[in-house]
């Protein structure tokens, strides 16, 4: 039924547009507040915090895709994973830019000193550097070129997310609630990938209800 396929594709495209707007909205909101000088008494701190939090939230959303697909059987979810991951990287870039430009004003001696000396900054910067190759190899072309190695490489999202949460936790002064919530969610999402937890779900839960689309990309980006 080619007609149904076309409708389905169009729905996927519209949903993609919706996910794109949702992913972009916190950035637009921060930009709007900054433009109107409504980020409070310490705008640099507010921007740094906002972009950092959205990086973590989107990393968690990216990591939630595979377990969600397993639980629901909706393979289509995988179609949105790259966009979520790239948005996480987008906010990570804004976060690092806030630090380099607005906070430190390109003072590379101070920054190097800071990053080497302060464990929370070491963790955060490492997490960012781990995300760079993932963003760079997110295209379909790179997927095809790297083949099986692509999957291995993209497992770097696990240490990146862990270091990101640790970075958030270590910079807190007293209120660690939000960081602990992220840590808990991350632990849950990682635990759902453990083989002995997955197999009972797969066996009992949700057998594939329809033949999977044999799209090159879908089979290539199947989660590790």
């Amino acid at each position, binding site marked *: 039924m080619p007609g149904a396929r076309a409708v389905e594709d169009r729905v996927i495209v519209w949903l993609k547009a919706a996910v794109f707007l949702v992913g972009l909205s916190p950035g637009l909101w921060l930009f709007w507040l900054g433009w109107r000088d409504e980020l*409070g*008494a310490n705008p640099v701190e507010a921007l740094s915090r906002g972009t950092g939090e959205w990086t973590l939230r989107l990393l968690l959303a990216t990591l939630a895709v595979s377990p969600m697909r397993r639980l629901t059987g909706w393979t289509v979810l995988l179609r949105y994973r790259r966009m979520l991951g790239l948005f996480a990287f987008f906010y990570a870039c804004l976060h690092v830019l806030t630090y380099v430009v607005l906070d430190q004003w390109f003072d590379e001696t101070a920054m190097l000193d800071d990053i080497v000396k302060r464990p929370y900054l070491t963790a955060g910067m490492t997490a960012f550097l781990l995300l760079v190759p993932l963003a760079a190899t997110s295209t379909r072309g790179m997927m095809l070129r790297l083949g099986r190695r692509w999957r291995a490489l993209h497992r770097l999202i696990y240490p990146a997310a862990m270091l990101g949460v640790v970075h958030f936790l270590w910079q807190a002064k007293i209120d660690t609630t939000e960081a602990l919530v992220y840590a808990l969610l991350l632990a849950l999402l990682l635990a759902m990938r453990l083989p002995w937890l997955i197999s009972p779900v797969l066996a009992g839960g949700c057998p594939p209800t329809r033949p999977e689309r044999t799209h090159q990309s879908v089979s290539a980006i199947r989660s590790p």
Partner: protein
Amino acid sequence: MLIRSHKKIPSSEITPRWVWEDRRHFLAYSSVGLLGLASGAVWGVSPPDTRGARIPGLLKGQFSSGELPTPYEDVTRYNNFVEFGADKRDPALRAGSLRTRPWTLRVEGECEKPGDIGIEDILSGFTQEERIYRLRCVEAWAMVIPWVGFPLGDLLKRFGPTAKAKYVAFETLQDPEQMPGQRRASLRWPYVEGLRIDEAMHPLTLIATGLYGEELPNQNGAPLRLVVPWKYGFKSIKSIVSIRFTQNQPATTWNRLQPEEYGFYANVNPDVEHPRWSQRYHRMIGEGWLSRKRKTELFNGYTDEVGGLYSGMDLKRFY
């Protein structure tokens, strides 16, 4: 005809009058609160207007900095006052529940005339003056604040500290009803601070009762707040209810929580870094987006006045 009365509504179920009369705001605040929960931000809410009454007949005090004061809105909306929440916007939004009248300060310990003194007697008994001081927070930001107050030493002398009084210990009010942040054990309550007696008697050390020529807003530590401009802001304890002269160095809140991060002295010092960040630079609040950080000075720039208190002391050890 007798009309039988309906089941009585328990008073606890009656909407308080202020909620009803203020229902639009109540709804707006609650929905924004929900949004805030979702996004982790409550930027949309503007805090209630808390401007205090003008304090008449203020003198310009000595030691005032010639720097431009930080805008009133920033001084009163960017506060660390964990008793009202951990976020810096919390105190301005939530400190309305603090009742600053009546207020009694208890002074006791190693002194000849221990006793209680009411806020009215304090306000009328000491000459209030304006002092524009720099405030440097341990988190590497700073403000310039036109305080109103009087030297702490003037107050302490009235109680006749004895030769055994080597230190002064301060305590904030403890009342989770008025201070919702105290319902969580984020810090050990009440907040306590301390100074060496010579630091406490130093003419720079102030008891603040106001700022910008007006009564102190609750979020800034009303009605009595310590101001020690050469030390990190957390030493300047807020909403003080007790002062005690002691022989031994008293415990202090942040030192108890993280001794390697926060010392008893907590003098501003660019050469002693906080384990998690540098203290070499600070950001001036209120200067906006594109301002550069400034160099932090030893004793927050008050070395001429207070450097002598620490001659011969290893400031890296006694941080």
